């Protein structure tokens, strides 16, 4: 699928190359992403999708190449880029001893002025209103994933980086993810998605990047 251009390029990867140990995971990976676009990264297990996402977020230094956000290198522009970024990895990144709500208050508090109402709206949307005072340790796997989704919703970030967001979710949960992404794209957001299944996003522009 090719995309119809719209607006300026917001996120750009240029000629990225990454090595892990003795093996080259990928080389010459380049792409551009504009407002309202979704990039679906696919490839077999272990081909380097998660590693690519980490490079794009600035967690890993690539061997060569650079990532640009609003045409500035992310390494030069870290705070600004990270303020527009919400990354959901394979792991849930929740403190097991804090409740769902406490976890969100802390993680979101670092990045945006957050109203209680927004937070509760997000928790409500993912269906955790009743469970918000349960320590994350006692949540089920799907419920933990939903807390992460609530984080993306309430973060107000422009760019969502989602690594297998459908994991552990029931059917309703997977539809919720699709709906969230569609709405986010409609709001001129950007999505980087890694998922083995096909996604159900119709709105916006979706592109595909094959790795490995």
């Amino acid at each position, binding site marked *: 699928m090719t995309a119809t251009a719209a607006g300026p390029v917001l996120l750009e990867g240029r000629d990225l190359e990454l090595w892990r140990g003795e093996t080259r995971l990928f080389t010459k990976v380049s792409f551009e992403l504009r407002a309202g676009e979704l990039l679906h990264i696919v490839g077999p297990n272990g081909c380097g999708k998660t590693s690519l996402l980490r490079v794009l977020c600035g967690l890993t230094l690539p061997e060569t190449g650079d990532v640009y956000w609003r045409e500035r290198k992310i390494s030069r522009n870290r705070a600004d880029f990270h303020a527009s970024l919400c990354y959901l990895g394979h792991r*849930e990144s929740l*403190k097991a*001893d*804090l409740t769902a709500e406490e976890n969100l208050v802390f993680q979101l508090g*670092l*990045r*945006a002025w957050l109203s209680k109402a927004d937070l509760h709206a997000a928790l409500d949307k993912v269906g955790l209103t009743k469970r918000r005072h349960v320590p994350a340790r006692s949540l089920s796997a799907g419920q933990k994933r939903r807390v992460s989704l609530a984080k993306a919703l309430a973060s107000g970030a422009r760019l969502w980086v989602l690594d297998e967001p459908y994991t552990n979710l029931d059917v309703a949960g997977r539809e919720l993810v699709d709906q969230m992404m569609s709405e986010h794209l409609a709001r001129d957001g950007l999505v980087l998605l890694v998922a083995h299944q096909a996604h159900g996003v119709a709105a916006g522009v979706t592109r595909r990047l094959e790795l490995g």
Partner: protein
Amino acid sequence: MNEWPGLGTAFWLQLTRDLRLAFRHIGQAANPLMFFVMVTTLFPLALSPAPELLQAIAPGVIWVSALLASLLAAESLFRQDVEDGTMEQLALSPQPLSLLLLAKTTAHWLMTGLPLVLMAPIVGHALFLPGDAVPETMLALLLATPVLSLAGAVMAALTVGLRRGGGLLSLLILPIVMPVLIFGARATDMAMQGLDVGGVMYLLAAILLLAVSLAPAGMAAAMRISLD
């Protein structure tokens, strides 16, 4: 203008989160303190209870146990955050990582260093430390324990992705903090002999300043390497 919350807010959020976590695990929080008490009671038991001997070793015992108690806690300072993925999220927040790690270290100090300072009079009494030397010792501990926490934090950030066991962390921390130990113990010693401890205190304060200004950047750099 930034749209994200200021440094003060971020520091405060991180600090309160860590304290809250610690107090959910109150047992863990009490560990360094317990250790400190055990070590100081052990010496009179292990040696002869003669007051002169105890008094002679009091500075050494107080300072070595302070050092070891903060070492004990450094191991777990960042490990859990890295393992459960929270550290990644910190590194991806718009706030400077050095500030957040400094806040974590502050929380750590409040739980391990500060109690030692407050316990010093009791421990000193048990070891027949002359009453006059107690305020000086407390001041010296107040200046020195943050340095121990900061040094521990830098080394913990360096080793956090690594397998545990084997005492690697202590191998890295102990040589670095040796000067603090020497100056601190000397301060107590001199106070016992009624000498002026001003000079030592200034030295400790200078080391503290140095540590506070350099350590956060070091921690952040080390942590980014460990997360890579």
